[in-house]
Each structure stands twice: as structure tokens, then as C-alpha cells.
């Protein structure tokens, strides 16, 4: 019995990602979502060219909104997150140890963000695809094979700084 992903959260970040929002509502993608057990979809659409609102389509409950102060709650509630390639969103999701599929926006010229998604896929922390390969990726990949993302460790660097920037008077 494969794992079911009941609640899926999609985030496009602070700008817009028209193609992804459009694709998420297309029959092919909805079918692929149902295949992995999806019953509820929440989409943070940003400034994309779709209307926010609540509706049910093919027995899946959709909630679309533009922005929230923090998407952390939605990430925590989700069983699977589909995100744009922004580093902030990717790291936030990985920190919550949620399975993550990154959809790269090919319309963006400045694609050094792709570098990070690529590396994180090589290290086995997420999968990434484009809008065109979204359905196929959802069908094929096994999110249970993803490895948890190790916690950031700034302590070494902070200690190094404390060491080279010596302060005579003891501040602590």
C-alpha cells in the first residue's frame, strides 16, 4: 500500500507563476493528484493570473489565496508540498521535513535558483521538474525515498568569528 498524500500545499512565492497555477487545475494534474491520494489542495497563488477562492473540482477541495504573513502553518498541515524554486520556500519546507516537489519556472531568466534545486535533488532531499513534466513526475517518483535535510549548523562559524574577533572584557 503506497503512502497517501491527503493534503497538498502549493506555493509560488512572492511573485507569480501563472503556468503552474493553471496546470494545478488541469484535469491531467488533478488526476495525477488523485492517484497519490489527494483530497485537499491549498494553493498560494501570489500575483498569478487566477482568481483566489474555494471550490470543489473532481472531488478535490481547492483553496486558493494570494498571500499570507507566514505559509508555515500550511506547510505543517500538508502531507506533500509543491513549490517554486525559491530558496526561502524550499528550505522552509525541508526544515519541516515535508516531502517536496519543486517546479522550476522556465520563464525566469535568472535561474541560479535552479542550482540549489538541482543540488538538493542530487543529495536526495527533493525532486524537481518543470510544468511540462509535472504529471509524469507525480506518477513516477516515490516521495518516501527522500532523505531528511540535515539541520543548518552555524555554530562552527560563530565560534570561528568569536575566536578571531577577540573581545578582552568578558561580555557574557
Amino acid at each position: 500500500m503506497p503512502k497517501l498524500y491527503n493534503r497538498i500545499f502549493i506555493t509560488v512565492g512572492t511573485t507569480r507563476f501563472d503556468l503552474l497555477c493553471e496546470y494545478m487545475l488541469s484535469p491531467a494534474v488533478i488526476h495525477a493528484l488523485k492517484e497519490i491520494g489527494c483530497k485537499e489542495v491549498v494553493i498560494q497563488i501570489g500575483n498569478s493570473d487566477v482568481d483566489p477562492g474555494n471550490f470543489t473540482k473532481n472531488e478535490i477541495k481547492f483553496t486558493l489565496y494570494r498571500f499570507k504573513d507566514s505559509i508555515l502553518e500550511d506547510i505543517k498541515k500538508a502531507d506533500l508540498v509543491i513549490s517554486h524554486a525559491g530558496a526561502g520556500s524550499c528550505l522552509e519546507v525541508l526544515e519541516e521535513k515535508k516531502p517536496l516537489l519543486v517546479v522550476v519556472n522556465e520563464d525566469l531568466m535568472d535561474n541560479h535558483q535552479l542550482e540549489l534545486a538541482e543540488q538538493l535533488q542530487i543529495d536526495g532531499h527533493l525532486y524537481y521538474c518543470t510544468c511540462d513534466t509535472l504529471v509524469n513526475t507525480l506518477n513516477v517518483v516515490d516521495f518516501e525515498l527522500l532523505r531528511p535535510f540535515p539541520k543548518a549548523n552555524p555554530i562552527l562559524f560563530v565560534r570561528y568569528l568569536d575566536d578571531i574577533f577577540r573581545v578582552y572584557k568578558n561580555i557574557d
Partner: protein
Amino acid sequence: MEILSFLCLIFTALVIGVTARVIYLLIKIFTTECALYQDSNLRTIFCIGSGGHTTELLRFMRNLNCRKYYPRLYILADNDINSESKIFEAENKQSTYLLNKIPRSRKVNQSYFSSVFSTIYSTLITVPVIYKFKPNVIFCNGPGTCIPICVVAFILRILFLLDCRIVFIESICRVRSLSLTGKILQYFADLVVVQWPQLRDVSLRAKYFGRLT
């Protein structure tokens, strides 16, 4: 005639002096750990960029001892509306820090020709800010907005007007190549830190301490 040759002599001496000072500083930066010995606290500047850069730098800032790195001055672009609340949030909603807004050197869609002048203008504006604050440490992580601040700090250091260390932290997004800011700053920042081990191979002297954010 004699006055003229005297002036020439002074000018030559100055050029030689400044060159020697620059070479001395560069050798020091490239070969030593650029230690800083301070009686008490470290006056610290954080160069706030935009969006993801801001978030990354502030997340790192939270790990620093706030009594050692004190007072803290945040320099940000005057059209940056989001960063201010992020700083307030990161400072635990206490206004024990300083803020300074400088004009942005190149606005979106501005022509390159006029951006030369606006860059010079925004660089000049930072001079009194940095000179008055007299930072011991400057933290920056790009984008380009931090370069004028670092250049001014370096020039003041050449002139013995300031003794400060520049710490550049490359964004986690850069996996295989340094950002343009990183490529420039690696020649005169005291410490260049990258967050992916493979980046050490493509940079002059970057250090890797693991992932910071």
C-alpha cells in the same frame, strides 16, 4: 618652479605611501586570519540587500551574541519596504538597533549611463554614515548594494580612519559558482564564507563551515 617640484614630490610620496598601505593590507587580508582585538563590544554593520538575501542574513544574525556585536547598524536601500519589518522581527521587536537608509544605486530600468552617477552619489552618501559609526565588523551577503559600503570601509581603512573587518557570506543559492558580488569582494573582504564545500574550489580563499541557514 621650486614649489611645483615640491608639490610633485609630496604627491609622489603620497602615491607611494597609499600603494604601500594597500599592498600591506592585501597581504594581511590574504595571508592572516585578520584577527581583531577589541576592548569591549564590536560595532557591527549589517548590509541588508533584498528578499532572500535579507532573510538569510537576519537568520544568521540571530546566532550572534547580541551583547558582543553591539551596537548594530542596518544599512538598507531607501526603496526597500519589506526588510524593515523583518529586521524588527529578527531583533525580537526591541529597538536596540540603528537603521540607515541610503539611495539605491541602480533602480530597475534605469539607464547604465545615469546609474554611474547615482552609484557615485549613493557611495558618497555612505561615507559619513560609515565614518561616524566607525564599525569594527561589516557583515554582508550580497546583492551588489553592499559593494559601495565595503569599498568605502576599505578606503577608510587604507587611510587609517577606520579599523574594520568585512565578512562576506555567500548565499546558500550559490552551489557551483560565486555571485558577482562574491567574485568582487573576495579580493578585499577579510573573510569570505561559502555554504557549499565545492565552492571552495572555484574561489580564491573562501572558507566553508557547513550550512549556515
